[in-house]
């Protein structure tokens, strides 16, 4: 059979078919552009950030970066060698030099230093602050959100009140995060007098993520088959017993996994915590408080705010780039882990719970 010969039913080449092929390719390229753009952001930050966070020698992870507070970096030359030191090391070094000089009866050596804020040390307090913010706000958001979803899905009958509530939830989801920041500032920080504190940040973030949690929980509750509830009610259980024993246990995994995306959002937002909970710098760790109640009313350092500070408030140079990319890498890593967990868990749950 010659190659030009075609089977009678095979598709014949035509103008329309070529157009269709071209359109498919255009759309495919659009999709690829999105993926490549996303990959470029991830790739750049992972590639450059890993230089700060990892190292070639044992233990392969830059432990200091993950366990120390941000410090000022001093760069100077002394006796022909160039040094880079964090502020506490530098002070010790200079005192040593001065003592040496005094012992030898010489004037103290003058060091020409350049200092770079936040470029030494690590981001430990920021990691802690972010984790505290996420845990507190998600606890609040989950308890409020799940209860709302139970009401909307299990109890409420269609009516004007429920429609109004749903409308409010939809609109709340569209409110810009900076407006939540203003609201939190006006209400918690000023009106309640909580100042810049964990508590103010928790509530602001919780309210911001509430619509996400409610929608996710409702989806999970809807996925539980009606038969479960009817069976339980038929056995004489009350409504609450039914919800507790026959609905919630099956909905919980779904609620939690879908809410993880809410966690990623809470961890990633900067604008709402800028005036409600975040400090640029704070030398104490959150648990170093005198009274237990102070724990709630202290501001914390947070990773997203730190990225903002180091990328806009300090000049760009090789030293600051290190801490910028390192912080972004750690932050992106945390968020990516949360998001991956959510996506993987959800896909697995989808296949497991098939009623």
């Amino acid at each position: 059979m010659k190659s030009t010969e075609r089977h009678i039913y095979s598709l014949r080449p035509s103008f329309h078919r070529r157009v269709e092929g071209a359109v498919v390719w255009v759309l495919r390229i659009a999709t690829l552009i999105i993926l490549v753009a996303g990959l470029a952001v991830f790739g750049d930050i992972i590639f450059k950030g890993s230089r700060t966070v990892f190292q070639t020698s044992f233990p392969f992870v830059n432990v200091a970066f993950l366990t120390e507070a941000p410090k000022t970096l001093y760069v100077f030359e002394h006796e022909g060698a160039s040094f880079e030191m964090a502020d506490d090391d530098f002070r010790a070094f200079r005192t040593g030099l001065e003592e040496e000089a005094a012992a030898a009866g010489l004037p103290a050596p003058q060091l020409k230093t350049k200092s770079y804020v936040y470029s030494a040390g690590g981001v430990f307090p920021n990691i802690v602050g972010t984790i505290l913010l996420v845990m507190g706000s998600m606890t609040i958001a989950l308890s409020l959100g799940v209860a709302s979803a139970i009401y909307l899905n299990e109890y409420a009958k269609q009516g004007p009140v429920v429609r109004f509530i749903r409308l409010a939830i939809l609109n709340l989801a569209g409110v810009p995060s900076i407006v939540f920041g203003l609201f939190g500032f006006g209400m918690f920080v000023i009106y309640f007098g909580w100042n810049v504190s964990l508590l103010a940040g928790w509530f602001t973030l919780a309210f911001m993520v509430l619509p996400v949690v409610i929608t996710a929980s409702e989806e999970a509750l809807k996925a539980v088959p009606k038969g479960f509830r009817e069976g339980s009610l038929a056995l004489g259980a009350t409504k609450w017993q039914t919800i507790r024993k026959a609905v919630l246990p099956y909905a919980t995994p779904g609620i939690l996994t879908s809410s993880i995306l809410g966690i990623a959002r809470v961890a990633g937002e900067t604008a709402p915590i800028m005036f409600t909970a975040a400090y640029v710098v704070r030398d104490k760790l959150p648990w170093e408080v005198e009274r237990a109640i102070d724990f709630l009313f202290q501001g914390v350092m947070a990773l997203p705010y730190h990225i903002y500070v180091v990328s806009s408030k300090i000049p760009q140079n090789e030293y600051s780039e290190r801490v910028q990319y390192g912080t972004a890498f750690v932050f992106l890593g945390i968020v990516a882990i949360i998001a991956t967990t959510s996506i993987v868990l959800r896909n697995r749950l989808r296949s497991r719970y098939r009623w």
Partner: protein
Amino acid sequence: MPDSDRPAFAIRKTRTRFLGLTMDECIQAFFGGNALVAVLVLGLITVFLFREGSGFFKQNQSNIEVYRTAGLEYVDHLKRQEADHTALTRYLFDLRVRVFKHHTEVEGATLGEANQQLIAFDDYSYDFGDTVEPLREAVYDLSESVTATKTRMLVNEDRLVERQQLRDAGAVEAAEAVVIEEIDLVAARQPLLAFRPVYGQINGQFAASLLSVLAAEAPAMPTAELEARFTRFHELVEQYIDGFPTVEAALNTWDPNEPIPTWKSWTSFITGERWLTASFWQDWYGVLPLLTGSLMVSMVALIIAVPLGVGAAIYVNQLASVREQNIIKPCIEFISAIPSVVLGFFGIAVLGQAIRIISQWDWLSWVPGFPVVERLNALTAGVLLALIAVPTIFTLAEDALQNVPRAFKEASFALGATKLQTIIRIVIPAALSGIISAVLLGLGRVVGETMVVLLCAGNRIAIPDFTTGIAAFTQPVHTMTGIIAQEMGEVVQGGIHYRALFVVGIVLFFIALFINFMAQKIVQRYRISIG
């Protein structure tokens, strides 16, 4: 129903009652209460935004009143006249650069020779520049005097507030002890009023000297194009001189005691073209530059994100294989999880520079605005915002396509339509309202996004120069979200600047609500059309 009426054997289901509610009803009420939190939060946001922002318009009015009574308005007329002259001088300087370029590049003269040839031109422009001197001196003296008056008025206002606070705190004696210096406004304005006849003279001299400069022998221009520019300069100067009587009239009719109407405080916010704060002359709170910036950035983002997001949604939903779907969907969801501050940082560290380098490529020089002057501008921020809008648009548009009933497609295929025909004629029209609402919600996200624009939009508070056409998009802008994030930390609580930021927040809040409302309306119509 009383208990005694019940038959003895009836099972009593309710044992405990609380506030007349059964246990189950209590639980229901608890959950219902939680569901109301969303409504409550929305209400509280409105209340607190208005609570903090409400005083703004009153304060802004007194701000404008001080501007008038202290005489700043008067001096501003003169300042504008001076500024126009400066603009003309700049035009002349720009012309010199062009002539210089012509000499060196076209005629191949050395730098020294070119400068030699321009001596006549320079003399001419110096003469022109000198004409403004008498006016400039007068403006300087008057500025000093009115700024002093304004400062004294502001000090008095502060003292009044202090006295009120002391009185509220119960310290009456201390309140009375606060000295409020009487300002003799009439005396303070004396220099301004005395200046009126002097100004007539200065103006006359100024016009005469300008005319004599114009009448003097004009330096020769090497080409017709430059000659045309020079003629244009003459016309501009003549127009400028024609405007003098208007300024004089404005000065002569200026009445410091004329009350400021209430709407002025509103219009100066809504249509004000200046957002100037902490200035030593006069603060202006006009939202227009910020609104323009927000809209421009969003426009760039949508122009990029809509074709990409909708295209990808159509591809994934209609054309891609299941394996492709399983890869692409989680990836895009992953992109939506990138925190905005990280994207902003990426913009500062990589994208801004990349756009600048790309814009310097020769074969792209036809693009308006290229090469870009500033690394961080509306374009940079818009490109990054597109990456934020894409996942939203993609997910929602994909949902909308998914919701198109299968029967629609099957019927189309059965009639012999090709895949492409089915998609374009059947699936997309059926999902159109869903797609539009997806785009609107994407717009909502972009308008409300803070960190990316704060870091990458360039933060210059000015309405870009739209006379340059599309190139305006390569200029730095400032946005509503950005200004709140940037200035909120530095303002005095309860001050006019603080309240102005809250009013910007209110504007933003209502824009977001409006976009959301539109999206919902469109989706509702969509339901009807399918049913």
